[in-house]
């Protein structure tokens, strides 16, 4: 089976610092793949290289066998790669419902057909369904900027799923969220993975969350791959322990 | 031919030095408090009228100017910061810039209401007269403006680079949080930059109004040139403002003489648009990380 996402020898240097150094990995369709590592291990840089925010100095990135090295965020989202951001990223001046519709509308029709389309562009039902799934239905008519932090985090995630992406990249979904919500997010992600077959790549600091969520985990340290394996394998890997404790 | 070029360049430099004075203060405010001061031209225009007021009651020029400096420090230093910038800054760069536009409108119209719309002549502190250097007529006035501007700008640079207060001001501009940790009173340092801006503008008023004439709408064109100078030179570099101002002054004159006088005003703007599009950090500026 071809991997849904593969990176081969990806490198990114800032002067003498090798932020990402010859990293390769593959993600199979339907997998939940975690990326962890101490601070400064290159997680975010790698993420940005894959997502086209930064152009890598070397290596290749492919999505479903299609070369996407250096392709911009617009191209990737059009291909069906969803993502969330480390910091909150919703459209504060739009209602919650409009936020989720905005997240999917560009996948329907052409630029010109959208001008003349009905306001909800046929996404009304899907928006309500998604909002219900993320427990945001009671807030549908509120301005997104007025939601609590946790609600905005959920909305951010809901937006990433609106366009039925095959792959979603999550940048620290558990950061700054209370334990009850973390648990809810974990269950939601696993449910989406199970029911819709969505593939996830997750960058996360919260070890418990990653271990409970992911099927396979890659550990980065100083820009290089330290280990790849199941949560159990990673937990018992002495090199990983050393990297974390040593750091 | 050479003499003409030299002549144009010298008077262009003198005009440009004035732009630079206004542009410097502009850059200062931007660096320390993200203020795009659209009323910068009025900060030059109003002191001219304050000075005329003092002169009108028979005060000698030097005293009148000293009092003007004090008044403008109070109004455009302390007052502007406390009444406009402090409450607006949390709303963002753009609302603050628009508030400055409203201020500029109010100042222009206020002066017009009080002093009328007619131009008034202002006494000159610089000597009148011309000297010839290798066939080029150089006026004492141009030389005076250039020298005063250079001394001021270099003095300010030295102050910022060499003195404790100056460095604290720079630190407050570049990294306010860090500066606070070091025990610097950031708010006070920012206030100093506002005072410096007010002082620069008053001196610019003293230098330009004998030629520009004191008129309620003189700030518009001057402010516009100052923006252009600041951006062309680099919004985050003090010497950029100087270079930008001088460059505009000279380019305008050369355009007027050798290309198309009716597009003289466009010269600075064309240069400015090109710089904005291809080197937005300015010709001499540092690249700023784009903050999202």
């Amino acid at each position, binding site marked *: 089976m071809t991997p849904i996402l593969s990176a081969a020898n990806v490198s990114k240097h800032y002067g003498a610092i090798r932020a990402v150094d010859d990293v390769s990995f593959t993600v199979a369709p339907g997998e939940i793949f975690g990326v962890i590592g101490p601070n400064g291990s290159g997680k975010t840089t790698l993420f940005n290289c894959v997502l086209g925010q930064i152009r890598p100095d070397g290596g290749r990135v492919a999505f479903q066998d299609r070369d996407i090295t250096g392709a911009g965020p617009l191209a990737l989202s059009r291909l069906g790669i969803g993502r969330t951001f480390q910091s909150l990223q919703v459209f504060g001046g739009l209602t919650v419902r409009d936020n989720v519709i905005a997240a999917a509308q560009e996948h329907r029709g052409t630029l010109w057909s959208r001008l003349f389309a009905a306001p909800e562009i046929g996404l009304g039902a899907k928006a309500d369904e998604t909002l219900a799934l993320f427990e945001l239905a009671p807030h549908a008519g509120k301005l997104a900027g007025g939601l609590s932090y946790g609600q905005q985090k959920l909305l951010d995630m809901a937006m990433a799923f609106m366009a039925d992406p095959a792959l979603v990249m999550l940048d620290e979904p558990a950061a700054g969220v209370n334990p009850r919500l973390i648990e809810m997010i974990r269950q939601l992600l696993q449910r989406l993975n199970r029911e819709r077959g969505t593939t996830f790549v997750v960058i996360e600091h919260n070890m418990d969350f990653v271990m409970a969520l992911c099927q396979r985990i890659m550990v980065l340290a100083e820009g290089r791959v330290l280990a790849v394996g199941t949560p159990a394998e990673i937990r018992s890997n002495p090199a990983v322990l050393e990297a974390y404790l040593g750091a | 031919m050479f003499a*003409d070029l030299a002549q144009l360049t010298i008077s*262009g430099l003198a005009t440009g030095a004035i732009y630079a004075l206004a542009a410097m203060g502009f850059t200062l405010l931007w660096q320390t408090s993200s203020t795009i001061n659209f009323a910068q031209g009025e900060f030059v225009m109003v002191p001219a009228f304050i000075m005329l007021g003092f002169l009108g009651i028979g005060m000698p020029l030097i005293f009148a100017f000293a009092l003007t400096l004090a008044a403008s420090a109070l109004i455009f230093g302390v007052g502007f910061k406390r009444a406009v910038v402090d409450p607006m800054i949390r709303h963002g760069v753009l609302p603050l810039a628009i508030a400055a536009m409203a201020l500029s409108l109010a100042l222009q119209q206020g002066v017009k209401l009080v002093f009328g719309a007619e131009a008034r*002549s202002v006494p000159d502190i610089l000597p009148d007269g011309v000297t010839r250097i290798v066939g080029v007529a150089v006026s004492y006035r141009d030389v005076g403006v250039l020298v005063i501007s250079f001394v001021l700008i270099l003095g300010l640079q030295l102050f910022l680079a060499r003195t404790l207060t100056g460095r604290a001001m720079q630190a407050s501009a570049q990294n306010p949080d860090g500066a606070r940790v070091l025990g610097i009173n950031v708010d006070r340092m920012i206030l100093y930059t506002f005072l410096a801006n007010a002082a620069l503008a008053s001196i610019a008023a003293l230098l330009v109004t004998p030629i*520009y*004439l004191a008129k309620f709408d003189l700030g518009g064109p001057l402010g516009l040139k100052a923006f252009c100078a600041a951006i062309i030179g680099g919004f985050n570099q003090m010497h950029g403002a100087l270079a930008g101002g001088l460059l505009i002054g000279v380019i305008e004159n050369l355009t*007027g*003489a050798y290309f198309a006088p009716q597009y003289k005003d466009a010269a600075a703007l064309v240069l400015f648009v090109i710089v904005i599009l291809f080197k937005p950090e300015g010709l001499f500026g540092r690249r700023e990380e784009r903050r999202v």
Partner: protein
Amino acid sequence: MAKTTRREALGILGGAAAVGLARPAIAQQPQTVKFVNVVELSGAGVTSGTNWRDGIELAVRELNAAGGILGRRIEVQHLDTASNPGQARALVTRAIDQDPYILFGPVFSGSVMVSMAVAQEARMPQFTGGEATAITAQGNPYIFRTSFSQVQAMPKVAAYLKDQVRAQSVSIIWVNNDFGKGGRDAIMAELQRRGVRVAIDVSTEQNQVDFSSAVLRAKNANADALFVYLNEDESARILREIRRQGYDKPIIGETVLPSQQVIELAGDAANGIRGHVGLTVNAPIPAIQDFSRRFQAAFNRISDHNGIKGFFAVHVVNAVTKRLGRFDRQAFAEAMKNIRITTADAPGVLMDVSYDDKGNLDRDSFLVEVRNGRQEVVAVLPPIGRS
């Protein structure tokens, strides 16, 4: 008088009642007569407009003190066009809504050109300070000048340049607005007709500050004389620059360059300039000098030609209305055709004047020179009709 339509009547009622955009117009007291003056009280035309307004004010005050026009008190309202033609047109509309007897202004020709049709449509006599040739070439029977047009004045300037200055070539520096452009076109034509070469023709900006390149170009053209046609502030600035660059050929102007405001603003740099003026307080005419003293007493400044024009305009209205014996706009406009008014008849017009059938006037004019910071009249030129 214009017929009051049903709509207007309604408008007056409604205006008084509610919105207030319409103020009572016809409901003025019978013993007053209304003037509206639409003029440049700020912007590039501020000096002209302010003098014009003050001239009108002085005439109105004096006439009112002497019992008004035909026993009616004059009420005058001044509106500021900000030297913006669009604004001028709007304000002329507004002025006409007030139903005045006579409309005054604007002074800037561009503003006159865009607004005069509005007054014409309302059959409203309009006294303008504008000098553009086109103003009286539209066949508008309600427009009247208070000074020469540029085509009347420029022949005098061109003849002066050729015959007295003996210039075979002339450099021209002009301001690129309606005033400057009109004057430049007129002088170019007159110079060419007389075989005087235009060595260079330099346009400058309204609000321009640095004139070094303009003066340098004129200087390098090496013509026998320089003709400067700018507004007041810019004239003062360019004179300083001209002196600075040590230009030593004759500098000639028309009306503005040797005017009071320019001399005041330019200081010593104005000395030696020569030019033609249609009106000046320095004219060797007792009535004008007396006017000048009264003007200075009232407004604490020396009137320029526009002050005289405003004063003159009110007195023409007074003289013609007296002849008619009633307030009738249509009759007034007709009476203005080919009229001749002498100072014996109406001392307020200051100099004998005659109008043609298009609204152009003719009278003496003056050649002046600035000496020691004062404008001095060096010659009186006869009216064109007699020259």
